[in-house]
């Protein structure tokens, strides 16, 4: 989006223009949903995170200073909301486990089946399933950088702006992420080799 257009759109958003809000949602719902899906690896959770992102945009657009692009800001909110969602889910799981130890397990802890990203081609679905399991094991920052780079297709420069890091740090994060993924996959295939 050209800078002038974006600036105009932000101004309209700040004035509470609903058409402007709809325009932003419809043009960026894909990028928000795809990023969230890459991180939370569950379509329902990704939809929930996407809604939370736009609710936050709606509520706090007046505080947006325009120091970065609107999309960069949206990516930042998405990453932070998706990571919060994962932490909440982990906490819930741990709590349910403790409850089950005391025999008060009324609610079943649902473990979804293996995640397959809907954008992966049919031939690659099986291989991608293992890769996504490995991505889920990565440390937070490596997971974010890898998702933004390989699933959202962003450049190192764009990722550095979103994560507020230097380009060199992003390169290093991605290098470590790839190394860890290879290590995980190697162990997996060695254990499951027939």
């Amino acid at each position: 989006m050209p800078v002038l257009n974006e600036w105009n759109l932000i101004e309209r958003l700040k004035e509470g223009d609903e058409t402007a809000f709809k325009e932003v949602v419809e043009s960026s719902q894909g990028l928000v949903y795809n990023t969230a899906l890459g991180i939370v690896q569950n379509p329902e959770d990704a939809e929930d995170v996407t809604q939370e992102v736009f609710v936050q945009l709606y509520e706090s657009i007046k505080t947006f200073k325009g120091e970065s692009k609107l999309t960069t800001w949206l990516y930042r909110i998405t990453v932070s909301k998706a990571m919060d969602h994962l932490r909440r889910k982990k906490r819930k799981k741990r709590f349910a486990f403790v409850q089950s130890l005391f025999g008060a397990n009324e609610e079943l802890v649902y473990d979804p089946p293996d995640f397959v990203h809907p954008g992966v081609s049919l031939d690659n679905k099986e291989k991608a399933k293992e890769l996504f399991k490995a991505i889920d094991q990565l440390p937070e920052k490596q997971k974010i950088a890898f998702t933004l780079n390989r699933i959202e297709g962003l450049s190192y420069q764009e990722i550095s702006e979103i994560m507020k890091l230097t380009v060199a740090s992003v390169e290093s994060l991605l290098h470590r992420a790839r190394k860890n993924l290879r290590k995980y996959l190697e162990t997996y295939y060695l254990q499951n080799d027939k």
Partner: protein
Amino acid sequence: MNKMTTIQKKVDDAMDSILDIRRADPNPFFYTRLQARIKGVESNFWERMSRVVSRPAFAFITLSVVLILNTFVALNETSVAFSKANISDVATADDLGTNAFYDIENVQP
């Protein structure tokens, strides 16, 4: 050696499996669902209030204010209540030195 080469090939294939990944989009009518959620958030004032109140920062600030007020009141009270001059002033004003008011009860026939 052969086994390791096969494993490496599998790892490479898995790593390359998302090279041609396409962007996923949310289900249709996302904007309608979003509008419903925004209206829900706006109308539920008490839910928003409870979210603010349940923040650790809110609890910390409230506790600090209560402690500061308590300390302030306690310090002020001690300086006023335990001054000897004040005690004697109160005793004089209330005529605590005499017990003549008991005589009202003991009227002689």
